[in-house]
C-alpha cells in the first residue's frame, strides 16, 4: 500500500514538475493524433456528405462497410500498415516504418470510420430546406456544402472529439508501426504499455492520469456539443 502511495506521489510530481521526458511523450502523442485528425477530417466530411445526401446504388452497403471498419481492432490496422510499409512490402521504398508519419497514417485510417459514421448521422439530420434555401439564394455548390457543414457544426465538433479520443488512446497500431522509439515515436499509450515493463510505474501512472484527464475533458465537451447539436436540430 505504501509502495502504491509512493508511486502515485511520484507520478503527480512528474506531472507538476513538467518532467521533460514525460512532456516530450505527451507532445509526440498530441502532435501525431492532431495531425491525423485534421488530415482525416476533409475526406471524411466529403464521404459523409456523399453518404448522407446523394442516393447512389450500394449506399447502404457503403454505410455498413464504414460501420464494419469502425469495429476493426487497431492491431489489425497496424498489421496491414506494417506489411505495406515494411522494406519487403509494396510501399517499402517510402521508408516510413517506425516514423511519426507512419503513425499518422495509422491513426488517419482509424479516425476515418469514426468520423464518417458520426458525420454521416449528423449531416443526415440536417433539414433538406437548408440546402434548398441556400441554392435559391444563389449560393454555389461549394458554398452550399460549407453551409451544411456550418449548420451541423456541433455534430462535426462532436465527431472530431470522439475520433480524437479513439486515436490518442489507441496502442495497437502505435506500437506496431511506431515502435515506441524514445524521442521519436514514443507516445502516451506505447510508453504506458512498454515502459511499465521497465518498472517505471510512476511515469506510466502519470501518463495514465493525462489520458484520464483528457478523456474527462473530451467527454464533457462531447456532452455539451451533443446538447447543442440537439437544440439545433429541434429548433
Amino acid at each position: 500500500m505504501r509502495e502504491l502511495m509512493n508511486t502515485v506521489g511520484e507520478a503527480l510530481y512528474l506531472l507538476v514538475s513538467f518532467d521533460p521526458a514525460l512532456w516530450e511523450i505527451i507532445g509526440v502523442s498530441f502532435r501525431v493524433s492532431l495531425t491525423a485528425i485534421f488530415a482525416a477530417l476533409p475526406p471524411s466530411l466529403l464521404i459523409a456528405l456523399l453518404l448522407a445526401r446523394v442516393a447512389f446504388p450500394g449506399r447502404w452497403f457503403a454505410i455498413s462497410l464504414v460501420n464494419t471498419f469502425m469495429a476493426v481492432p487497431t492491431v489489425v490496422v497496424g498489421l496491414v500498415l506494417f506489411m505495406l510499409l515494411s522494406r519487403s512490402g509494396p510501399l517499402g521504398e517510402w521508408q516510413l516504418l517506425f516514423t511519426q508519419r507512419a503513425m499518422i497514417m495509422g491513426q488517419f485510417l482509424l479516425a476515418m470510420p469514426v468520423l464518417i459514421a458520426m458525420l454521416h448521422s449528423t449531416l443526415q439530420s440536417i433539414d433538406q430546406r437548408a440546402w434548398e434555401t441556400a441554392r435559391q439564394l444563389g449560393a454555389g455548390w461549394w458554398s452550399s456544402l460549407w453551409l451544411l457543414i456550418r449548420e451541423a457544426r456541433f455534430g462535426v465538433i462532436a465527431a472530431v472529439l470522439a475520433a480524437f479520443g479513439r486515436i490518442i488512446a489507441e496502442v495497437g497500431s502505435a506500437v506496431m508501426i511506431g515502435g515506441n522509439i524514445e524521442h521519436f515515436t514514443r507516445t502516451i499509450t506505447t510508453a504506458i504499455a512498454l515502459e511499465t515493463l521497465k518498472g517505471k510505474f510512476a511515469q506510466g501512472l502519470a501518463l495514465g492520469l493525462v489520458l484520464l484527464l483528457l478523456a474527462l475533458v473530451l467527454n464533457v465537451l462531447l456532452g455539451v456539443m451533443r446538447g447543442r447539436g440537439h437544440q439545433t436540430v429541434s429548433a
Partner: protein
Amino acid sequence: MLQRRFPLLAALALTFLLASGAQAADIVRLATTTSTYNSGLLDYLLPKFEQDHPYQVQVIPVGTGKALRLGRDGDVDVVLTHAPGAEKAFVDAGYGVEPHGVMYNDFVIVGPADDPAGIEGGDDATRAFATLADEGATFISRGDDSGTEKKENHLWQDAGTTPDFEGYRSAGQGMGAVLNMASELQGYTLTDRGTWLAMKDKLDLEIMVEGDKALFNPYQVILVNPERHEGLNTQGARALAEWLISDEGQDLIDAFRLNDKVLFHASAGEKVDPSAAVQEND
C-alpha cells in the same frame, strides 16, 4: 428446469474446485528474460521438469529489469536472468536468495549486409561500438532495462562514449521487436545469439562481431526471498532451481539445439569461457 440444469451446475462447480485446488499448490511462477523464452529453451526444458515433479511452471517472459522487479514485489516465485550486476544488487538487498549460475550464452552484434559503418568481421565489441558512435550509425537499442540493454550500456561505457549519437534509437521493446526494427531500418543492434538464431531467416541482417569475451552472457536462477512475501511457492521454486543445476538439467541444457546450433552452455558451479561457445558453432 432448475432440476434439469443441476447436473451441469454441479459439474461446473466441481471443475472450478479441482482447477483452483490444483492452482494453489502446484504452480511455480518463473520470471525470465525474453531470450530464454524466445529461443524455445524453456519449452524444451520445462515439460521434462514437470514430468518428474508435481509442479507446473508458469513462465512470464519479460526484460531482466522487470523480471527482478516482479521478484522484488513477490509477484513471482523464482527468476532466471542474465545481468550479473543487477542480480548481485538484488541478492544483496535481500530480495532474492540462493543464486546459482545455470548456463551462459553469448551476444552478437548484427547489422545490415552492406555494413555502412564498416565493423564487419571484427572480434572487438568495444571498438565496434566506438566506431558505430563515431559514424553516427543507425543503432537500435532495446531500451527496456533488460539484461541485453545492461550489456549494451557496459559496452558503450567501455568504448568511452555515450549513446546519444545521431542514429541511436531506444525502442523500449523486446529482442524480437528490436531485431525486426533493425532489419526494417537497416541498423545495427546487440542481440543474444538465441533470439538471433531463432529469427535470422526472417531478417535482412548479418552477424558483424562475435566471439569477444565482453559479449559473455551468464544466466543465474534466484529464488525470491520467502521471508519478504507470504504465499510464495518456495518449495516448488527450489525444486526447479535444483533441477536446473542438477546433472539431468545441465545435460539437457547442453543437448538443446536451435537450427542445429548450440545455444546455451551448462555452467553450474564452473567458470566459463564465452569464446568456446562461438567456436563450437563455427
